[in-house]
């Protein structure tokens, strides 16, 4: 799923293994709500997992650390909340609208920031995201400190009642699967090959005639749109879009999730999101100490298994260098 792959003799075996893993993953998604786990927790987990996967497309596969992904996540949440609550959009259309807003923002941010690298890229994305934060604090439709509250879940396509938590769960699961599939396909496509080339040796890609800047902007746009998809879905799940979603803390959290899970792996961000969301939920009773616990985990992670949980497991498996 990650790292160098050879599509030679063992391609059919790999394909089969991939299908089995995908099948197992789907089975887990179908069974999960009946295991007694709180469905809201599972839905939150999927939203953040998708957010982290979208972020990882930039960090893990293009090698650019964006420190402003909360802007896409949060603005999509606001956009969806607004069109669903005020304009009466169908929840599905509302979510698409949110993702589209995030994608358009990604295109603009990407065009501005993409020629920078490393810390400069991170700083520009952070600065742009801060501008979005202050925009959200000031304008009317976001309702400032209150946020948009009481976003109705409504009826999906006028048929399925999303107020039913199980219906809502499967709707979120479907969005997660589609989002994840888009990322998987993007990584494993001719476009993904070009991204790998850029990550490995950018000057060489330029000398081979690739329009490197345009490729990166495209990747950033896809990443932003999917981060928006996650934020939009979250606003329907929690029926609220607030300043927390656009705050830079959110950008930091997604970095944390991706690094703990394993950047540059397909499944790492999902695991990382799981760890962080679970900690936040189950340690909520100890209040602000959660931050300390997460800090300790992060330090331990960086010091002992730098490749992240999934990265470390993959590295130890035989057959994948």
């Amino acid at each position, binding site marked *: 799923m990650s790292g160098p792959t050879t599509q030679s003799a063992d391609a059919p075996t790999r394909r089969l293994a991939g299908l089995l893993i995908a099948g197992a993953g789907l089975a887990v998604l179908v069974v999960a709500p009946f295991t007694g786990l709180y469905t809201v927790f599972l839905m939150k987990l999927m939203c953040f997992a998708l957010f982290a996967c979208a972020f990882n497309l930039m960090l893990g596969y293009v090698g650019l650390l964006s420190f402003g992904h909360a802007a896409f996540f949060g603005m999509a949440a606001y956009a969806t909340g607004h069109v669903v609550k005020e304009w009466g959009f169908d929840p599905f259309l509302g979510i698409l609208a949110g993702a589209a807003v995030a994608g358009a923002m990604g295109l603009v941010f990407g065009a501005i920031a993409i020629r920078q690298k490393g810390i400069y890229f991170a700083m520009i994305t952070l600065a742009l995201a801060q501008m979005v934060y202050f925009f959200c604090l000031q304008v009317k439709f976001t309702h400032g400190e209150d946020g948009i509250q009481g976003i109705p879940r409504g009826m999906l396509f006028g048929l399925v009642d999303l107020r039913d938590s199980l219906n809502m769960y499967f709707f979120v699961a479907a969005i997660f699967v589609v989002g994840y599939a888009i990322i998987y396909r993007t990584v494993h496509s001719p476009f993904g090959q070009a991204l790998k080339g850029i990550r490995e040796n950018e000057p060489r890609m*330029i000398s081979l005639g690739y329009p490197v800047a345009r*490729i990166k902007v495209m990747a950033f746009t896809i990443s932003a749109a999917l981060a928006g998809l996650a934020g939009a879905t979250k606003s329907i799940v929690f029926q609220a879009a607030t300043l927390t979603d656009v705050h830079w803390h959110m950008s930091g959290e997604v970095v944390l999730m991706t690094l703990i899970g394993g950047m540059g792996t397909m499944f790492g961000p999902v695991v990382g999101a799981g760890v962080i969301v679970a900690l936040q939920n189950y340690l909520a009773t100890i209040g602000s100490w959660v931050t300390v616990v997460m800090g300790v985990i992060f330090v331990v992670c960086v010091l002992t298994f730098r490749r992240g949980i999934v990265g470390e497991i993959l590295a130890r498996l035989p057959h994948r260098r």
Partner: protein
Amino acid sequence: MVHLLETHALTKQFAGFVAVKDVNLRVRKGHIHALIGPNGAGKTTCFNLITKFLQPTSGSIVYDGRDITRDSAGAVARTGLVRSFQISAVFPHLTALENVRLGLQQPTGLTFSFWKPTRVLYRLHDRARELLEAVGLSEFADTTAGEMPYGRKRALEIATTLALEPELMLLDEPMAGMGHEDIARVSDLIRKVSENRTVLMVEHNLEVVSTLSDTITVLQRGQILAEGSYDEVSNDPAVREAYMGTGGE
């Protein structure tokens, strides 16, 4: 057209320091043209200017009758002027086959197809294997490029460059850091690939230059000191003093 590439009064200044000054270079179609000169003579800067990795301060570059002075590096590469680098420019975590395939992928127009599976690129494999065979790397097809010996990496780089069917290949010190055996192999390779194309190369190894190239341009302190065949250049008193005397054989 006799000359595939011409530069007119090409000049590059870095903060007061003139790295390349009034260089009029003319590369004949079908020739192997070598740029030599002592360290710091501006050879690599010239390369970077011609391939548009650097923007010239003044002067112009004409390739195939078209002024490319204002074009971007990517655009220049797409018109058939493709360069290599001083340090090995392979994609270290990809296999040799995937390296060459990236060269082949560029002109296909598939690059932005993020919705298509990687499988659509498999039809390029036959051509990729042909190219690997042409540079003697058949048995390395599935080897990760980073794990290949140095000389083989250079060969892989040439195969990737050839994938674009360049009309003009610019090789920046193709023999740098190579042992004897590798030098012979890569020399043969350059001769072979230059049969129906033009090559401009920067090279330090005079033996290689003397046997391979049709024309030699000697640069010194950013300016052309002499130009001609190896015999003409090596008998030029100014060159003997400036180059052979200090860094020669």
